[in-house]
């Protein structure tokens, strides 16, 4: 197991701390950071959308849902 997990590796209800955003294309990375996904921020995974690939998290006092593709490039630490 690698040292870092991605957001996809979490189980529902699990909390984590954001480590870094993998270098995907610049605009995606910027958009994710603007939402508040900056290094050191705390996240709790809530659940995955049915049949789909949205993942709901708590982030900075709000609930947000991210696409699988976006969540996959976010490295976290438990």
């Amino acid at each position, binding site marked *: 197991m690698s040292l870092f997990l991605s957001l996809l590796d979490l189980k529902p209800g699990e909390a984590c701390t954001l480590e870094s955003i993998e270098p995907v294309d*610049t605009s*995606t*990375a*910027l*958009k*994710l*950071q*603007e*939402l*508040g996904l*900056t*290094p*050191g*921020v*705390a996240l*709790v995974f*809530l*659940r995955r*959308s*049915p*049949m*789909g*690939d*949205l993942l*709901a998290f*708590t982030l*900075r*006092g*709000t*609930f*947000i*849902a*991210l*696409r699988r*593709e*976006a969540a996959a490039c976010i490295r976290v630490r438990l």
Partner: protein
Amino acid sequence: MPISPPAPISSALVSKGLSYALVGRPNSGKTTIFNALTGLRQKVGNYPGVTVEKRYGSFSSPHGVVLQVLDLPGAQSLSPQSPDEAILRDVLFGLVPDTRVDRIVCVIDIHSLEPSLYFALQVLELAKPTIVILNNSAKKALSSAQVQALEDFLGVPVVVYKDQDRESLIRLKLFLSRASMPRQEECVCASAALSRAVKDIQNALACSPAEALAYLEGKDLKGLKGQEKAMLERIQASLLAEEPSWQQNRIQQRYQRIDSFIQSQRVYQLSLENSLSYRMDRWVLHPVFGWFVLTGVFAGIFFGVFSLSIYPMRLLEKGFEGIQGFLNTLPPSHTKDLLCEGVLGGLGNVILFLPQILILFFFIGVLELSGYLPRAIFLLDGPLRKVGLQGRSFIPLLSSYGCAIPGILATRTIGSWSERLATILIAPWISCSARLPIYLILIGVMLPSPLTPIGYKVGFLVGIYSVSTLAALGLAAALRKYLMPGHVSEMTLELPRYQWPSLRTIGFNLYERLRVFVSRTAPFIMAFSIIFWFLSNYPKASPSLQQNPIESSYAGQIGKALEPLIKPLGYDWKIGIGILSSFAARELFISTLGILYNVQEGTGAVEDCGCGCCGKLPASRSKFSSVLLSQQNDQGQRIYTPLSCLSLIIFYMFALQCTSTLVIVRKETGSWKWPCLQFMAMGAFAYIGALIVYQVGRALGFV
């Protein structure tokens, strides 16, 4: 920095007619504040060149000075992700003609304090005179010391606003009428490399630091050419070489400032896990129970629309009867004919369905403001992605059950162009409420009331809606597979906290829809009804001839000319005229047939079919059906047979017969290519579909 009591507004500003831009994140309560400020003194228009709604209004300060306020679209940040968000930034930079902004009011929401503060910091970096409103409608209040700290942190005045609180509204208006306002320092340039780049651009282009930053981020404010453009690219390249992640660094620095502020003030603990929203979402977003909730909510809405709309519809019928009764007392004249048949018969039948549309939009408003809609998007994103759409396509499609036009406008929240285009293109296949009266009347003809149990009729109607919905989704899948394949956009979705919807805000929305209908749609329908009435009454047939006077009229002649084309579908020339008039708007089919067959408004008695919804139709509709049932051709055969009605229903399900929709699609897609393609393809599909149904039905021995 203590905030001094507001000084009276200076005369220089009065003569200028100070204009405020109201900005904030989605769900920040911005629109509620806009409504509270302006009341009914608001207007809705469009920004030049784009169809983003421009809401603006005015209000009087406590000193009696009239101030303008512009409600800009909500956005997550000033880096645009959709056309709605792009207009926000363009307006703030003064790039939009006829839209001047002197000062900015930025709304921050206590429920999403951190993202709100991020947005506010971005706005403050524009270095315009700014005031911040802390929307504090929740129980969780900040102490006055914390508000003071927030003021110090942002460096601009902060006003606490509570919804439905007169005192806080007056305080807000006082703040807005201040003569002068502090602004943030010009540039928060985090690194030496960045501030050097900003300086270079400032020198070369003679602009403010905020504008220089916008150039650096790739926004072309002036339409640069040649030398200037090359110079800008050179500066961008050297900045990127020196500090590759300068944009990310700026974002992180803003959040670091916010984090340290939140920690120093202990503003709140992250206690979402104990919140009501969190507990509700365990059920609402549940992979099994979530669907029950979703189905329940939308079944409830459709039932509510049909059962609640009966009452205003009855009232309207009564009203029309009154007018009809009055008109009948007038001496016979051409004018009386025109008023009775042209105006009342045409417009009246359309107005009758207005309550249904308004009630549907009331429910959509409740869902939107309560916070359920993003949850529905969350649940439906998976299924909709299977047909090449995405969760955000849901609201446009839902609105399209009322009317395709607001549906198509609602696609602006979809960031990816191919998904947005697919949603726009399929929206006309979702059965809009203008088609409902046509379905109901034709079903009434196919399944006459005393003979068929009401369940069959309801079942048939549900069938029509299901088939058209499935066809629309199938079309989306086909479009995305063959015409515009492309990878699905990355999407983020915020699930705001649940809250009680503000009835006031919904009320304003409905009022606006009603106003648009009265001022734009109704005159159009009325003009068309009058023109059509003229065409179907002139030239007057000579009384010696034993024929229907309509047959010799202009409309009759057009219909007769059209007959060979539509005969294979089972229609006669009168239906042909009806279809032709539908191309202006579908509602006109009913009003046209009303004029053609001279159907008067009903007696107001209600036919009781025993079912909850469509049984209690206004009597005029069942009367309408019976008039159609009694129509015969020259050989004494019924014109409206079950088979020809079915063929007509198929035609109406699939044909795009709405000029307004075509115009909106043209505006939203930017070219005539898509509306033309849509019009022809859907027309051909409808024609062929109706042809197959009629001819196959005949071959199988149905009539």
